Structure formats: structure tokens, C-alpha cells
């Protein structure tokens, strides 16, 4: 590539060279044919004039040494060897009668192997024959003589002899596959000596060894020698590398001092002299190939000792070439001075034609340096401008000098293939005098025009030549060929060429070598090595290392900034650190996760151990939790505060509550569920005993008993299935019946449903079995069969319950007689609760009686009580939410004690009612009629409880019977006597009358002066007590024995509710109905198994009691909180209605129509309500949206607080107040009209 390009660049030069070569006559074949020199025929050769044309055609003329030789072409031309030629020469010379001395002097160089340099010089100079000195002419003649064919000597006989060394071709060549080259790694190569000795080394080593042997030392083996040389090489490489690093920066700002350009192409790089640091382009200095090792400019190479001066200009420094006569000239000068040219256009040397420069040129005075007669100047190319200047001066001054490549001019083979123009300062084209970039941009390549560069590259030599090379340790010189500086120059060379190796390194090198008299030898070896390197121009002896170095250098040159490199390293290091940290973080994260898991495991383990050690405790605990959940109002959660109800302990000897149960539980006081159940029942019975039936607490207790019973049953079953050891509270070794729990088939249920199948069982047992089955069935997956069976079971349970009740009432009757004497003793016997509770019962009634002396069976007894209750209720307000429990309990206590008699007829009535209701209900009649009338012994608490009441109530029942002229007693007795056969028809009428007839009396009484909240109690206390009690009992029974009768009761109530309004058109059926409704509602509930009638007052939306017109209710419309409203009979007369003298608004027609439509749509009954809002709006609402108002204070309060927004709450409040006012009005009216029960208002 490079070559091609160069050729392409300078075709003219090549052509010129060719021509010259021919001209010189060095090519033997061409020149021989033209004019073969045949000296011995010279004499024979005829003169040209005598030759005929034909002869002339066959003759070759050779002009040799001024004489013309003619050689016939037919003559055979002999081949002569050098020796023959030599001999011939001598002969010839002798024959030519030349000086024999000359011959000898000439013969000597001929024998020696010619020095290549000398040869080159001679051959170069040979073309200038005319100017040769005598000795040179001899050489010339010698060269020419070599071309003389020596006819006299015969052709040389080839001589050879057969060597008897074994032929290496014995072994057949191996296939290529066997040869494999494994390149050694750098480390491996570092370990072994790569250097190979050459003859010189061998000779030296032999010499040294001879000396050593003579001195009595062991000789040094060639291996050691090689190793040491190798090490030295390595050290030098290292050394030079470090030097190179420091030097590399120097070279950067360099430009070629010939063309003053710093352009550096691949094919035309800038070279630096290793000594004088001269920078030249390859092409500008004629270095077609970059040499290995060091490169020296010509003057450093050939005249290292003295600075050279240009023959053509007075300036020093710059790129020199030798002229053909051995002097020196600048390359630039040679280029610019027209008469001068280069002999070889590739190597650009030697400079020729200095002699041809006309003297006029020598005489020109350079206008720049003002020196005359020193060097040859050129003149401004501008026409008529004769200013002269030295080329180098012009360069220095930055004159305009331009070389245009003009190739076509080089047809005739002249050196001037380019057009050169140089102008003096005055005539420089615009812009060129500013030695800036402008000229280059305009005119392309310029030589000169860059003053500062030129100035830097030249120094003026002759008068006071401060050469540019002085930094290299040169001395100033005055004469052109002074020899003064020689030594210094020389000494500078090796220092630069061969890096010095510090002595400590040297010592290190020889550590591993065992040689006697080591130091001396190493010193010698080092010197030898230095000399050898010098002799090789500083070329490394081991190539690989050098190229290695180059590679290193290139790599390093990539990052000349060491700091940057270090920073990079550092960055890499930190990034690595970052990765490590990331890994650490990962690890720690794992640790964290693991520890969290361990913690979880620990917790689980604890739970597991707990389960293992105290499974019973856990079961009981969960059971207790469930029980507590059922006690939503938290009536039972804490012990009764004796400070609030000081007389509590008078009635209850063993108070119990959930918290103390829990404490006992935690203290491991319970071993099994039965223990827990015992306490639970105690708690409930306590409550039931202390609180009157009408109180919320009583109801709550009843409800809790129902719900809790289920929970306990479940717990019991669980305990059984788990297999708990009651003594340890731990699991039994083997769980007894894993599959028994909640596993039953439809067959079991069906068989149980068949009354005949359980004939052998007592009613209590039957009930239990039925309940269990019900639980099981309820726990099954829902399906058609399940719901059906649940219904059947419920019905069955109901019948059994009723049977039980009946039997109980029967029992009660039987015991009645004794009861009259015993009083409360019955309680003791009959109490289903723990025996402990009986004493309490025993105790309580008397005390209460003492406080309420009126224990007479007469209904008149009741009146004294209300005040007490009133007080109580008042007191109960104050303690807030929890206190009500207590106060109610207390209230409860008063009726239970003081009203034992009234309880009695309630019981009578109650026993009657269910039966009657059953009869009433058409749907259930078939199933109910066959209900077994077996007398159940009262096992269940509920039953006993009722029986107790029943016993107590018998007096009251009688009284009630007397007073109300009812047939109840008859009915009950009948029922009792009849036992199984008690016909419903008989019972039914009485009960109806019982329900309807007693109602009127209480109603007036109940509207006490107090507001609604006291209504419940007041009704209790009044003469209607029997009735209300009846109701309550009825419903409790219903709850206990359950189900079925619900809907009939509801319908019953409907019946009841319908009559009242007509009956007492201005009466207050609402109040009278309250208990009834509740009764109905609560009885309805069992169907849903959510036996919350007791807690209905406390549970927001539970009350399903039938509502009668003019009742005050909380009505819940969607999107609004519960709002006080009044139920209005839609069938009321259109002309209006007065309720206790208070006018009731008449519903508009469209409202009525809407109600009808709505009822039709939904299929259920809707009540027409009138809100107590300012607009008195109407609404139709289903039953479940209505809640009796005034049943319980807390409920009302809850309702009042229901609104989320304060404004809404306020409006509810006002509506409530309005409702209260309405109620008061109504009541007052009643009071005014009916002085029915003045006792109320004492």
C-alpha cells in the first residue's frame, strides 16, 4: 500500500532513476550488448570509415576510456570471473602502461569484501565521472573492467566433494497434523532465556573463558551467558519503557522540518532522529521503509561527531543530506535551488548538481540574513523582482513558498516534476504573510509560510552558529569541518541508544547465576552487551520483547493519563465493593427473613404446646368466649356491683359472672365442660331470680340460657369427640370416637323424628336427643333434606316442650298443696340449677317480702310496689348502661318474691296458651295433635324454672281467676287432670279470654306518669301483672321448649290486637298490648333458632312483636336512622280518630293505595306509620323495620344515637320529644278520664 502510493506519487522520479541506471551502465546485459568492452580487440578494430554497411551492421561500437572499440556481433563473448578479470585488468593496465602502483592500490580494495556503505558511496559518485579524483577513477575503471569479458580464461570447472554426513532426509516427513505450535505465555517466556548466541558471542565467550581458565576459574557456560544476556535485555526494556513514558510527550508537538507540516499519514509518518530529535516525514527525507531499531538522520549517522553546515545556505539545523561530493546540504535547499537535484529520488540522496549552480547564484545576497557569498540563494519568482533569499532563511521568515505538483512536466525525466513558487515578503500573495492557516486553506500544500516553525528549525550557523543541536551536548564550532566536538557527540550516542541499567538491577540479575568471580564477569558481560547493542544501533537483541513493549506502549498510550487510569481502577474497585455489599445485603435480608420465620415458629410452638398441655382449658376458654359473645349487652360480663344493689346478696348467695368464670377457668378450677355449664347455669339462674320477668335482664338471661345452652352442648360434644381427660385436662391417650362428632345420617334423624321410636325415653331425654339432632342437622351442609328435617325437628321439639310444660304444670299442681305451706321450699327442690342457688332463692323472697309487705295474693297487692319500682327505675338511670342490669335484677326480685301468686295464674294461663295456640294454628295441627302427652320429669332448667314460678303463681292464678272471672284455672286443672288427653278445645277458649280479658285492666294502669321507659316495670307492678307475666312465661316456655307456635301466636296476637281498638275506642291498647306483642314476637323467634326475644330490647332490629295501631315505634327507612313514628291503622275511619282525646291524623288516600300496592308486591304485611317529623310524613314499612318504642331505655337511647350526623341526631331527638309529648297527652287524657289506677301515680 505504502509502496504503491509512493510510486504513484512520484512516477517521474522512478523513471528518472531507471534512466540513470541505464546510463550508468551497471546493468551488464544491456550495456554489454550495446558496447561490449573487448579491449584486446581494440587494436584490431577497423576504423568506422573503412567499414562497409554490412560490416557496420555487424559491429558494435564501444567507447571506452575515450577510445572507440568495435566488436563484431558474431564474436563470442567470454564470461570472465572476477579473479580472471582482475588478472586481466593487471595485464591490461600493464599493457596500457599505467602506473603499477596504482594497480596495486586498486587491487587491494578489490580483494576485500567491499564495505556496503563505501560501495554505495562509490556507486553514487560514479555517475559524476568527470569530477572524480584520481583514486575514484581507478575505482571507476575497476568497475568498468569487471564488465570486460575475459576470453582467455576457460569456464570455471565446478568442483565438489561428497560429504559423508548422514542425510537428514532419512525420515519421511510427518503429516502436518503432528506439528502443533503452542505459543508460550508471557510468564513462561519470562522464565527462560530466549537469547541465542551468535558467533560473535561465542568468540567473546571463548576469549573470556580462556582468560578465566588461565586465571584458574571455571569457564562460563554458553547457557549462563544466554541467560544473562536475556536478563539484561529485559531490564533494558523495562528501563526504556519507563524512559519512553517520560519522553513520549516531547514528540507530540513536532512537524516535519522539510515541509513544515505536522500532517502525519499512515504511509508518511513523521520520523524522529534518535539523537538530534529531528522530525521529518518519511517522504520528505526519503525513508521509504521505517527501519527497525533506532533511526538516525543522515548527519547523525554519518557525521555524528561534528555539526554539519549546508553548502547552500548559512543556516544550521534541519534535515541534511550529503551532497555527492561529501558535503552537506539541506533537503529544502536541494529542493528549491533549481540547479540542484537528488540523485536518487526515492532516498533523496545524494544531492547533486551543486557544482552546476552558476556563480551568479552564489553571489546573490540574501535579503533576510544579509549575508553575501554564503550559500546559494533563490530569487523572488515575481517578474522584475530580484530579491534573493536563502531557502532556509525564507522558511525561517515564513515567506510564501509553494510547491505545486506538476507531473506532466516530468516527461523528459527531469527532477522537476513540480512547480515551485517562492515570493519575497513584498510579493507574497495576500494572507500568506500571516503565517497562519489562511494560506494553507487557500493554496493547499505549502512549504514555508510558517515563520515560527521555520525559525524553530533553523539556526544561523556561519558567523556564530548556535546550532540547534546544542541541547544534545554539542559544542559550538567555528570551522565547517572542525573535529572538536567529536568525542562529546559520540558519548551521547550510547546513552540514548541503550538504556543504562542501574547497578542494583544488575546485581539482581546475577543473583540467580552461579559464576566464579561473578562481579567481574558481569561487569564485562554488561560492557560487552552495551557494545553489542551499540553496534546494532541500539536494536534490542530479543525481538519479542521489543514488540511486546510496543504492544504495551500502545495499550498505555491509550491511557496516557496515569491518574485517569488509577481512577478507573479505583472505580472498578468500588464497583466491586458495591457488588459485595449488595451480596451482603442479600444475605442480611435472608437472615432477617429467617429470624422472622423463627419467631413465627416460636409462636406456633407455644400454641402447640399449650394445646398439648391444656386442651381442656382451651376448649373451655373458647366456649367461654363464645358465651361472652352472646352476651352482647355485657350484662353478665362483670360481677354485680354490690354498692349499687346492696341487697343482691340477700337473694343471691353465690353470685357468678363471666369474668369470675374466666378467672376460675384460668385457675384450672374447671375440669370439664360440665363444670363450666354448672357455673353458667348458676349465673343465669341468679339473674332470673333476682330480676323480674319483665325486665330486660330477665329476658337477656333467658336468651343467654338458650344460646349458651347450644354453645355448651356443642362444647360438650367437642370435648367428647376430642377425648379429654377430665382429671388432667389433657387428651386421652386415644381419642374415643373420632367420627361420632356431628356424624349422623338422615335415618337417625328420621327415626328420632318418629315419636314411637323414643317412647322409651323421658321427655327430657327426648328433648335432649332432638336438640342434639337439630344441632347436627343444622351443622350439615344445606340442602333440601336438611331444611325439611330441621323444620320437622323443631316441630318435634316444640311438641315435646309443650308436653314437658304440661307435665310440669301437672307436677306443679300436684305440688301445689305442699307449696302452700312450703312456700319457697319448692324452689329448692325443683330448681334445676345447682343446689347452691336454692338457698339464695330461699333467702331472697322473704327479704323482699319484708321490704314489700304486700305479699297478699290479691291483685291489690300490686299497687304498693310500683313506687318502689319507680324509685328503682329512677335510680337505675343514673349508673348508666351497666347499672340497668342490676336495677332490673332488683326489679325482677320484687315481682318474683312479692308476686308469686300472680306468677301462678300466669303459669296457668301460659300452660294453656301454647296448647290453644297449637290448636289455633291450622298448619301445624296435624303434627301437633299426636304429640305425646307423657309427663316429662323436669330435667331442663327452663322447665323447672317455670315450674317453680308456676308453683308460686298458683295463688295468684287463683286470684286472677277470681278477679277476672276466668276459666283459666279450670283449664289448667283440666289440662293437668286430663294429662295426656287434655283437649285443646277446652283450653283454648279460656286462654283466649285470659288473654283478652286481663288486658283491659292493666292498660290503664301502665301509663304511669313516667315516660315510656318505665312502662315495662309499671305494667308489671300493676294489676295486669298476671297477664304480662303470663305472657312472659308463655314466651319463655316457648323459648325453652321452642318453635312452631310462633306464627300462630302472631296470628293470635293479631286477633287480640284487632279487638282492642273497638273495645276501648279511646283506650290505650298500645300499652296493654306491649307485653302481648312481645310475647308473640319472642315466640316467633325460635323458628329462626335465634332466640333473642329476651334480648330483643337490647338487640336493635330484633323485635318482631306484633304492632298495634297507635303504638309508638322506631321506624327505619332506608337511608335514614330509626325515627320515632306511630303505627296507624289504615282502616281507621276517614273522618278522623281521637286517641285519648288526641286527634290522630288520617292517612291520605294515595298513601293507603300505595300501601296496598306495596303489600301486594312484597307479599308481606306492611304497617302504616306516621313519623314524628315536622311534616308528619307517612310510610309503609314491613315489620322488621319497626321496633317498639319505649321498651327499654337503652334501646331508645341507642336509637337516638343512631344518626351519624349531628343534624340527623338532632332531628331524631326532636321527633322523639314530640313522640313523648304525644304519649304524655294520651296518657294524661286517660288519667283524666279514667281514674282507673291511681296508685300508679303515687
Amino acid at each position, binding site marked *: 500500500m505504502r509502496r504503491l502510493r509512493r510510486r504513484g506519487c512520484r512516477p517521474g522520479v522512478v523513471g528518472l532513476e531507471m534512466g540513470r541506471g541505464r546510463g550508468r551502465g551497471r546493468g551488464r546485459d544491456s550495456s554489454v550488448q550495446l558496447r561490449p568492452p573487448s579491449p584486446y580487440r581494440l587494436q584490431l578494430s577497423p576504423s568506422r570509415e573503412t567499414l562497409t554497411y554490412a560490416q557496420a551492421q555487424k559491429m558494435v561500437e564501444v567507447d571506452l576510456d575515450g577510445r572507440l572499440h568495435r566488436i563484431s556481433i558474431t564474436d563470442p563473448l567470454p564470461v570472465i570471473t572476477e579473479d580472471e578479470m582482475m588478472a586481466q585488468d593487471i595485464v591490461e593496465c600493464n599493457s596500457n602502461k599505467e602506473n603499477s602502483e596504482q594497480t596495486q592500490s586498486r587491487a587491494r580494495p578489490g580483494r576485500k569484501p567491499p564495505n556496503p556503505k563505501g560501495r554505495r558511496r562509490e556507486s553514487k559518485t560514479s555517475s559524476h565521472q568527470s569530477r572524480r579524483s584520481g583514486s575514484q577513477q581507478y575505482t571507476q575503471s575497476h568497475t568498468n573492467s569487471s564488465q570486460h569479458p575475459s576470453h582467455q580464461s576457460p569456464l570455471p570447472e565446478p568442483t565438489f566433494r561428497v560429504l559423508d554426513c548422514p542425510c537428514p532426509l532419512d525420515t519421511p516427513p510427518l503429516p502436518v497434523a503432528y506439528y502443533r505450535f503452542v505459543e508460550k505465555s508471557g510468564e513462561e517466556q519470562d522464565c527462560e532465556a530466549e537469547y541465542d548466541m551468535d558467533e560473535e558471542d561465542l568468540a567473546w565467550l571463548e576469549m573470556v573463558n580462556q582468560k578465566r581458565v588461565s586465571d584458574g576459574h571455571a569457564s562460563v557456560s554458553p547457557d549462563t551467558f544466554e541467560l544473562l544476556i536475556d536478563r539484561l535485555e529485559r531490564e533494558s526494556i523495562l528501563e526504556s519503557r519507563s524512559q519512553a513514558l517520560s519522553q513520549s510527550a516531547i*514528540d507530540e508537538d513536532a512537524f516535519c522540518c522539510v515541509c513544515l507540516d505536522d500532517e502525519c499519514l499512515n504511509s508518511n509518518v513523521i520520523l524522529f532522529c534518535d539523537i538530534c530529535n529531528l522530525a521529518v516525514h518519511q517522504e520528505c527525507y526519503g525513508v521509504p521503509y*521505517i527501519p527497525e531499531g*533506532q533511526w538516525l538522520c543522515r548527519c547523525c549517522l554519518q557525521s555524528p561527531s561534528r555539526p554539519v553546515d549546508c553548502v547552500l545556505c548559512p543556516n544550521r539545523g534541519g534535515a541534511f543530506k550529503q551532497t555527492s561530493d561529501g558535503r552537506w546540504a539541506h533537503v529544502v535547499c536541494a529542493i528549491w535551488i533549481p540547479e540542484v537535484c537528488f540523485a536518487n529520488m526515492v532516498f533523496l540522496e545524494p544531492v547533486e548538481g551543486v557544482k552546476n549552480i552558476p556563480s551568479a547564484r552564489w553571489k546573490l545576497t540574501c535579503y533576510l540574513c544579509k549575508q553575501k557569498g554564503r550559500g546559494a540563494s533563490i530569487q523572488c519568482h515575481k517578474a522584475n523582482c530580484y530579491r534573493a533569499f536563502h531557502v532556509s532563511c525564507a522558511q525561517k521568515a515564513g515567506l510564501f513558498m509553494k510547491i505545486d505538483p506538476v507531473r506532466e512536466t516530468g516527461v523528459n525525466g527531469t527532477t522537476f516534476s513540480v512547480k515551485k513558487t517562492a515570493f519575497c515578503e513584498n510579493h507574497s500573495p495576500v494572507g500568506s504573510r500571516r503565517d497562519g492557516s489562511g494560506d494553507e486553506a487557500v493554496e493547499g500544500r505549502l512549504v514555508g509560510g510558517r515563520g515560527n516553525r521555520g525559525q524553530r528549525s533553523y539556526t544561523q550557523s556561519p558567523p556564530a552558529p548556535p546550532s540547534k543541536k546544542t541541547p544534545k551536548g554539542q559544542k559550538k564550532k567555528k570551522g565547517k569541518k572542525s573535529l572538536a566536538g567529536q568525542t562529546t557527540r559520540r558519548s551521547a550516542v550510547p546513552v540514548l541508544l541503550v538504556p543504562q541499567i542501574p547497578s542494583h538491577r544488575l546485581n539482581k540479575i546475577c543473583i540467580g547465576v552461579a559464576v566464579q568471580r561473578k562481579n567481574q564477569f558481569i561487569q564485562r558481560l554488561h560492557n560487552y552487551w552495551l557494545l553489542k547493542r551499540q553496534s546494532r544501533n541500539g536494536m534490542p537483541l530479543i525481538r519479542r520483547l521489543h514488540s511486546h513493549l510496543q504492544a504495551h506502549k500502545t495499550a498505555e498510550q491509550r491511557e496516557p493519563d496515569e491518574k485517569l487510569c488509577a481512577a478507573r481502577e479505583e472505580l472498578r474497585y468500588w464497583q466491586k465493593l458495591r457488588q459485595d455489599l449488595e451480596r451482603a445485603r442479600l444475605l442480611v435480608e435472608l437472615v432477617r427473613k429467617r*429470624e422472622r420465620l423463627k419467631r413465627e415458629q416460636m409462636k406456633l410452638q407455644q400454641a402447640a404446646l399449650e394445646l398439648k398441655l391444656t386442651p381442656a382449658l382451651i376448649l373451655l376458654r373458647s366456649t367461654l368466649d363464645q358465651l361472652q359473645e352472646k352476651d352482647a349487652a355485657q350484662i353478665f360480663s362483670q360481677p354485680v356491683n354490690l354498692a349499687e344493689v346492696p341487697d343482691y346478696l340477700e337473694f343471691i348467695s353465690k353470685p357468678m359472672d363471666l369474668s369470675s368464670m374466666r378467672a376460675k377457668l*384460668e385457675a384450672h378450677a374447671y375440669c370439664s365442660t360440665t363444670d363450666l355449664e354448672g357455673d353458667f347455669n348458676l349465673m343465669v339462674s341468679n339473674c332470673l331470680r333476682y330480676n323480674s320477668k319483665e325486665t330486660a335482664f330477665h329476658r337477656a338471661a333467658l336468651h343467654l340460657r338458650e344460646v349458651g345452652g347450644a354453645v355448651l352442648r356443642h362444647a360438650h360434644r367437642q370435648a367428647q369427640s376430642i377425648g379429654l381427660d377430665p382429671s388432667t*385436662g389433657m387428651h386421652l391417650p386415644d381419642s374415643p370416637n373420632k367420627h361420632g362428632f356431628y356424624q349422623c345420617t338422615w335415618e337417625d334423624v328420621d327415626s328420632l323424628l318418629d315419636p314411637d321410636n323414643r317412647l322409651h325415653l323421658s321427655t327430657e331425654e327426648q328433648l335432649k336427643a332432638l336438640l342434639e339432632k337439630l344441632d347436627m342437622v343444622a351443622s350439615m351442609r344445606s340442602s333440601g333434606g336438611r331444611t325439611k328435617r330441621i323444620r320437622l325437628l323443631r316441630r318435634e321439639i316444640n311438641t315435646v316442650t309443650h308436653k314437658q310444660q304440661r307435665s310440669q304444670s301437672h307436677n306443679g299442681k300436684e305440688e301445689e298443696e305442699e307449696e302452700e305451706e312450703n312456700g319457697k321450699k319448692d324452689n329448692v327442690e325443683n330448681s334445676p340449677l345447682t343446689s347452691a342457688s336454692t338457698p339464695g332463692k330461699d333467702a331472697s323472697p322473704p327479704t323482699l317480702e319484708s321490704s314489700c309487705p304486700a305479699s297478699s295474693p290479691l291483685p291489690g297487692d300490686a299497687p304498693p310496689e310500683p313506687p318502689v319500682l319507680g324509685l328503682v327505675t329512677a335510680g337505675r338511670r343514673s349508673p348508666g348502661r351497666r347499672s340497668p342490669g342490676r336495677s332490673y335484677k332488683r326489679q325482677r326480685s320484687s315481682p318474683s318474691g312479692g308476686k308469686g301468686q300472680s306468677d301462678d295464674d300466669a303459669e296457668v294461663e301460659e300452660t294453656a296458651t301454647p296448647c290453644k295456640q297449637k290448636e289455633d294454628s291450622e298448619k301445624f295441627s296435624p303434627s301437633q295433635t299426636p304429640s305425646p302427652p307423657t309427663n316429662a320429669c323436669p330435667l331442663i332448667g327452663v322447665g323447672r324454672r317455670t315450674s317453680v314460678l308456676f308453683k308460686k303463681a298458683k295463688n295468684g292464678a287463683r286470684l286472677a281467676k277470681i278477679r277476672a272471672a276466668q276459666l283459666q284455672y279450670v283449664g289448667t286443672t283440666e289440662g293437668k287432670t286430663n294429662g295426656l288427653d287434655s283437649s285443646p278445645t277446652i283450653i283454648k277458649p279460656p286462654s283466649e279470654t285470659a288473654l283478652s280479658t286481663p288486658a283491659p285492666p292493666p292498660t290503664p294502669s301502665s301509663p304511669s306518669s313516667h315516660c315510656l321507659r318505665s312502662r315495662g316495670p309499671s305494667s308489671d307492678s300493676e294489676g295486669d301483672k298476671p297477664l304480662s307475666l303470663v305472657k312472659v312465661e308463655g314466651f319463655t316456655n316457648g323459648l325453652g321448649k321452642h318453635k312452631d307456635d310462633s306464627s300462630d301466636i302472631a296470628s293470635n296476637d293479631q286477633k287480640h290486637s284487632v279487638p282492642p281498638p273497638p273495645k276501648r275506642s279511646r283506650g290505650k291498647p298500645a300499652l296493654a298490648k306491649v307485653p302481648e306483642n312481645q310475647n308473640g314476637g319472642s315466640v316467633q323467634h325460635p323458628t329462626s333458632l335465634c332466640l333473642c326475644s329476651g334480648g330483643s330490647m337490647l338487640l336493635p332490629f330484633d323485635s318482631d312483636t306484633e304492632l298495634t295501631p297507635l303504638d309508638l315505634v322506631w321506624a327505619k327507612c332506608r337511608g335514614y336512622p330509626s325515627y320515632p313514628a306511630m303505627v296507624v291503622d289504615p282502616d281507621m275511619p276517614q273522618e278522623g280518630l281521637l286517641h285519648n282525646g288526641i286527634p290522630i291524623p288520617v292517612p291520605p288516600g294515595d298513601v293507603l293505595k300505595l300501601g296496598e300496592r306495596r303489600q301486594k308486591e312484597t307479599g308481606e304485611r306492611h304497617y302504616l306509620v306516621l313519623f314524628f317529623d315536622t311534616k308528619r310524613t307517612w310510610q309503609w314499612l314491613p315489620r322488621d323495620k319497626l321496633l317498639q318504642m319505649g321498651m327499654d331505655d337503652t334501646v331508645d337511647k341507642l336509637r337516638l344515637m343512631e344518626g351519624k350526623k349531628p343534624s340527623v341526631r338532632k332531628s331524631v331527638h326532636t321527633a322523639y320529644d314530640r313522640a313523648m309529648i304525644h304519649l304524655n297527652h294520651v296518657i294524661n287524657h286517660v288519667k283524666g278520664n279514667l281514674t282507673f289506677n291511681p296508685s300508679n301515680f303515687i
Partner: protein
Amino acid sequence: MAVTLPRFLRGGIENLPCELQRNFTLMRDLDNRTEEKKGEIDKLAEEYISSVRNLASEQRVEHLQKIQSAYSKCKEFSDDKVQLAMQTYEMVDKHIRRLDADLARFENELKEKLEVSGYESPEGRGLKKGEGQGLREKRGPKGRGRKSSDEDSPRKKKLKNSPGLSSALLPMQPSDVLDMPVDPNEPTYCLCHQVSYGEMIGCDNPDCPIEWFHFACVDLATKPKGKWFCPRCTQDKKKK
């Protein structure tokens, strides 16, 4: 000019290994104690089982309380361990975050430095002369040329190198972190049980079993305001 990262980091990365070591030792200590307690508990439990029949209820309670207290001790230890682990994590995390910040700074400075040194280097000189384009073009091949004719002495040629220093240095950096070998034990997170990547969000339930979620897996694009609970914890909460 010479930027040293240690300047940034001298703050305590040297102590990190020590602290880690200490924390882990502590953790191990706690672990040992927990194990001891567990053994104790086992013994107690066995004792209880064997003698429960003869124990009065108070004794039982007492015994169980002993077990209970041992467990609470264990729990304490566990809590401590978790706390410690979390602390350790925070510590490492803090260091990492600081290192990240410092690295970013360092890289920036390095970049700047590269630019600066670029002006000082050979071609920087050329650029100063104002013939950037042409010179650069001329120099490009020169470098290659020297490489091919490699057998010359150090100072043979004009050494004008134009290696893209910055281009050589910078691409290495981003890839480095990504190239980290995948740890097979890397903890997994999220509903998808993948290793963490991209933006993650932490459940605000301290007892969340998963803790961290990929944004994409929980249908998030941006960080939600206020507290955020993972789908599971939300469900659990609703149940409660």
C-alpha cells in the same frame, strides 16, 4: 483533579464487616439462648405431663406459668433477633445507598476529568489549534498505522493517539451492576414469589408475611399516598 472515592466513603465502610460480625454473633448468642429455653420448656412440659394428675390446680397454674414465662423469654429473644436483623439490614442498606450516591458522584467527576484530560492530551492540542475535524481525521489512521508497523523504537513516530478514553471507560459501568451473578438464594418477594426488581412497595402491616411487592403485581404505577396494605393483609383486615 485526582478524585478519590475513599474521601467519600471513609465514613465507615471499614467498620461494616466488624459490625456485621458483631451483630451476627449477637444473633447467634440469642439463638443459643432461645434453644436453651426451648429445651427447658420441653423439660417442663414433660414434667407437667407426667405429674399433672397429682397436681392441684394452683400448682398446675404455676407450672404452666413457668412454661409461659419461658416462652415469653423466647419470644423476647426472637424479637431481639428480628430487631437485630433489621438493624443489620438497615446498616448495610445505608452503606449501599451511600456508596451508590458516592459512586454516581465519582463517575460524574471521572467523566468531567476525562473531558479535561482530553483537552490536555495530544489531540486536545490539535483541537486547540482549531482544525479539529481535519486533524482528527488525519490522525485516526495514523494510530493504526503505527500499530501495524510495530517494530520501531519508542520514539520513532509521532505519537498521536486518539483512543476514545471516555468511550472505553464509561460503558463498563452500568453493565457492572447488572452483571452481578444471580444468587440462587436470593430472597423472593411479592405474590409472584420472584426476586426483587424495579420498584417495590412495602406492605404497611408489620406482620405481613411477604412485605414487599412489585408495583406491577399489585397494579400500581406510582407510589400510593398514605398507608398501603397488600391484598392479603387487606383481606385479613376485612375478616377481622
